[in-house]
């Protein structure tokens, strides 16, 4: 479904070039693909390249066989790509209901909007009319961000560290959110995560470090290596 071919991304900062992704190739066809790896490795950069927020310096992106490298964020969204930001954006004056309505692409009833909030473990009544502004806590904002992707229900959903800021009790619910999403969309879910419990549900695990794919394969093959303290080895390929 999603195919990344030889993606490189070079950022320029103060006139200095920095290679953030270096010849990354990846294909996502399974239900759950998890990307993991050290901080600063390039995971979010890759997610942004999938969503169209960043354009790769080199390489092509294919979605359902179509070359979408030159398509805008909007066009990709309309073709069926969703992206839950690592750091969700806040808006003054836009309510949770507004945002979920916009995500679902149609006018939805309060009841429908509430259903998405309940799925991410928020008591809908308390949140539906709140503004998505600085008054929300980090965890609340993160859950609302996940709810917008659920409301879209697209073929490909990318979640960037969805567990960040989510309390332990909710963890199991979060996992069932992904399972429900899958049963609804029958699409692929790409999750960037540092959490063993999330890696545990992945069909495929991809390790990205230093801008390169250092390891990729079925969970059963990749995960034991990551957990047994041979992390450095795994990261270095």
């Amino acid at each position: 479904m999603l195919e990344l071919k030889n993606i490189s991304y070079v950022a320029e900062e103060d006139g200095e070039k920095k290679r953030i992704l270096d010849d990354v190739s990846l294909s996502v066809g399974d239900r759950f693909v998890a990307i993991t790896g050290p901080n600063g490795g390039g995971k979010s950069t890759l997610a942004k390249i999938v969503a169209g927020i960043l354009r790769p310096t080199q390489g092509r992106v294919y979605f359902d066989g179509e070359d979408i490298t030159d398509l805008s964020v909007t066009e990709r969204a309309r073709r069926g790509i969703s992206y839950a930001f690592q750091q969700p954006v806040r808006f003054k004056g836009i309510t949770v209901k507004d945002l979920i309505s916009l995500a679902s692409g149609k006018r939805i009833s309060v009841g429908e909007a509430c259903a998405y909030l309940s799925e991410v473990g928020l008591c809908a009544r308390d949140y539906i009319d709140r503004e998505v502004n600085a008054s929300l806590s980090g965890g609340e904002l993160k859950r609302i961000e996940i709810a917008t992707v659920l409301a879209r229900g697209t073929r490909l959903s990318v979640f960037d560290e969805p567990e960040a800021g989510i309390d332990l009790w909710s963890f199991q619910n979060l996992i069932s959110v992904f399972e429900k999403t899958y049963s609804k969309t029958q699409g692929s879910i790409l999750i960037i995560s540092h959490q063993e419990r999330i890696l545990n549900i992945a069909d495929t695990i991809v390790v990205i470090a230093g801008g390169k794919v250092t390891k990729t394969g079925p969970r059963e093959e990749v995960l034991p290596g990551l957990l047994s303290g041979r992390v450095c080895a795994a990261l270095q390929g």
Partner: protein
Amino acid sequence: MDELEKMLLMQIADLHRVPDGAYNLRKNGESEGRRSTPHIRIEPRQDGHSGVDIFISSQTRGESVHIPVVITQSDYRETVYNDFYVEEGADVLIIAGCGIHNCGTQTAEHSGVHTFHVGKNARVKYVEKHYASGDGNGEKVMNPQTDIVLEEGARLEMETTQIKGVDSTVRTTNAALAAGAELVIREKIYTHGKQYAKTNFSVSLNGDGAGADVVSRSVAAGTSLQQLDLHIDGNTRCHGHSECDAIIMDDARVTAVPALAANCVDAELIHEAAIGKIAGDQLLKLMTLGLTEQEAEEQIIKGFLS
């Protein structure tokens, strides 16, 4: 009333019929209708100025007064004075507003001077909307002035909105607060084209424990120019907060000049200001939901000014 006048009334006061309660409707300088109620008396002024005096008795609880102004003539200018006398302990909602439709080539101008004398412990909610339309070249000009005197323990909440179409405006609000009085102001302005909007807020916190919270949110598009002068004087133990939050687009310009004067060691005054274009990540987030850049912009502005 014709369709055009009805449309203007809808825009400024959400009115599609004669309102309940007390009202005074002014159209092209004439009184089109007026009603007093047992608690709220509206009378023509005695001092030769045009406008009305509005007496709100201390028995008033949860009643409303509508005083809309509609202008549909070109080459017309007026200055109207309305004085509100709110007695001790009253609780009232006042809805004012001006709608101008000018399809001529000459200026249509309304200057409304509203004075509020708010008695002890009275509560006033004052909602004011300004709107103009018309495809002629005639300028639509509105210069509202609001003078507020709050006695001990009185509270006034003012919501002032200029939605669309006003070519030039100077909006002046002065307030003086006695002990324990509270003033809340929420201003919303959208300017586009070559429009000009100037806002002056000047608040004096004179009595022990007085408090003011003044927030202006605005969007300036096109080549419009907005200027905001925010002045709070803390003359005693008091708290004052002012905030200016503006989005600029295209070639618009916004100037915000806050001034806080703490004239007493127990005056606590805060100002916050942010002016800038729409944040890129806000646009991107909405685009990942399938909106075009322009749709995203519209949603962000709509929310911001809602």
